[in-house]
């Protein structure tokens, strides 16, 4: 089955990239843009799945981490392009800026993870939501990043290869982490925190790991997003964006990597396909969420018995 075996994941991912790279030549700009969006959303959804699905925490602030990563890496590459590095160094600088954004986002993830020692369920959800909003308000007033008018002039570095490589890396890392001996701890914390603690699994450590790794990849996704759209606006990182990612995870089936990837693809393409309906497309999109939740609550692509879902 595709549910386990991290190595198989890597193989699938490499195959996808190889096909994608070969295909990127004959895709027009619009399809290319949408496919990069898909890759970014896969990174976001799979990394959130580690926190919400596998570890059973409930984070509503995922795009806050994305904002941190996006702004940090964009400001770094803007500074680098002003400093005038030779073009040969640009991919390296871009990679470094992405990782730097990811690391800062991971630090933010640790800060958000700390309340999860004491708070559970809805209280944790609202605190993560609050953190996301605080980060957004911070960038809205942060003058060096353009404050409310947004950060302009970001170099266009995100290519097909970059976006899909990071999508593959994210899927690989999360899948192999969860399927490793160490990673069983995430599932233990998800299923029963108290029992896990009694068995010598330290829930605090696992929650912090989940939050920091999830946030790291969200930060990378933010960096990719920034260099794809070449413009960042704080309003793009509002609470609705986090909700979108949560919807991907839940429709994909909590804790099911394969389903979440499919859901990320579907929910990115759906609004594009509905573009033909112009004014009605977001209405249709929201109706579809309601209908899907009523008809397939276990996730769109889950066909085996349900795993215990916990809020």
């Amino acid at each position, binding site marked *: 089955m595709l549910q386990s075996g991290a190595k198989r994941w890597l193989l699938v991912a490499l195959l996808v990239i190889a096909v994608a790279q070969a295909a990127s030549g004959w895709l027009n700009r619009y399809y290319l843009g949408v496919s990069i969006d898909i890759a970014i959303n896969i990174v976001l959804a799979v990394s959130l799945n580690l926190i919400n699905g596998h570890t059973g925490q409930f984070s509503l602030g995922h795009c806050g981490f994305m904002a941190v990563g996006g702004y940090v890496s964009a400001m770094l590459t803007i500074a680098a392009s002003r400093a005038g590095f030779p073009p040969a160094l640009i991919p390296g600088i871009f990679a470094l800026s992405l990782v730097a954004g990811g690391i800062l986002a991971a630090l933010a993830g640790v800060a958000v993870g700390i309340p999860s020692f*004491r708070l559970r369920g809805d209280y944790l959800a*609202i605190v993560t939501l*609050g953190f996301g909003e*605080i980060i957004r308000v911070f960038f809205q007033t942060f003058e060096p990043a353009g404050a409310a008018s947004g950060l302009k002039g970001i170099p266009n570095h995100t290519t097909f290869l970059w976006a899909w490589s990071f999508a593959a890396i994210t899927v690989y890392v999360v899948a192999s982490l969860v399927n490793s001996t160490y990673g069983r701890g995430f599932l233990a914390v998800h299923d029963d925190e*108290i029992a896990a603690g009694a068995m010598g699994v330290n829930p605090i450590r696992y929650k912090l790991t989940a939050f920091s790794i999830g946030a790291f990849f969200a930060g990378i996704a933010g960096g990719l997003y920034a260099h794809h759209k070449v413009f960042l606006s704080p309003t793009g990182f509002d609470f609705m964006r986090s909700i979108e990612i949560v919807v991907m995870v839940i429709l994909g089936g909590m804790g099911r990597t394969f389903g979440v990837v499919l859901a990320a693809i579907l929910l990115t393409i759906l609004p594009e396909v509905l573009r033909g309906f112009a004014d009605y497309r977001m*209405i249709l*999109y929201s109706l579809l969420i309601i209908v899907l939740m*009523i008809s397939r609550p276990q996730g769109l692509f889950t066909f085996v018995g349900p795993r215990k879902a916990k*809020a």
Partner: protein
Amino acid sequence: MSEFLQQLLNGLSLGAIYALIALGYTMVYGVLRFINFAHGDVFMLGAFAGYFLAPSVARVFPPGSIAGALVVLITVMAICAGIGASIEYLAYRPLRRRPRLTVLITAIGVSLFIEFTCQHRLVFGASPRTFPELLANKTLHLGGLTVNTNQLVVITLTALLLGGLSFVVQRTKVGTAMRAVAFNEQAAALMGVNINRIISFTFALGSALAGAGGILFAMTYTKIEPLMGVQTGLKAFVAAVLGGIGNLPGAALGGLVLGVVETLAGGVQGLSNYRDGIAFAALILILLFRPAGLLGRAQIEKV
């Protein structure tokens, strides 16, 4: 000092509106244990219902009269009660026995549906509208304080509604049933409580309060638009959590605390830009020290 009192008063009138909306969140949480994300949109629909009702009411009652304002308020509350109960019937009832997360996402879907439908040009359109003046707004000077009659109306009306709510919940049969369902749904059903009817009633009651909040908000800030419920609803939800979700006095207290903290922080030089963030920062700080909210009781998990 008078500056401080002035801000306190402004904060209380904002907090009163938060409190009205927060009560709906907390009541629904009490009986169904999920966050009704569409609640903020019911608040918005209340404001718009008032906007469309006010001109026709003004034809019967003299404009700016108390009777006219009351007629608008009561009609809007009734309309919102109907909307809230129908949302529950259509979207949440089919999911009654499902995991809470499923219901939560459905609630988000309902919220998006209302927002996008209302933004459509055939419905309300996306551009803001100016709410008509229901009551003549006078400015009074009391000592060093500047008081809008609107602020007084908001605070008085909220106090009255809170009193009414507490009477319904504590003293009436249906209120007793509500508390019973919140305490233990199965046991309540065994005692002959019609669970579905009580849940509908809870939604109607909470939505009526949100509708009243919508009118009061529109009277105070005069601009209404289809997305007005998003930020206000979020803040009200924060207020409900702040006070301890599921706890009615807690929601009222949380609303007032949030309104006052936000307004006071907005008055401080250099902090005013961070106004929206401060509400959440206060929430996180309070929850770190009181994880179950101000008035919530910490639940000990039994193994």
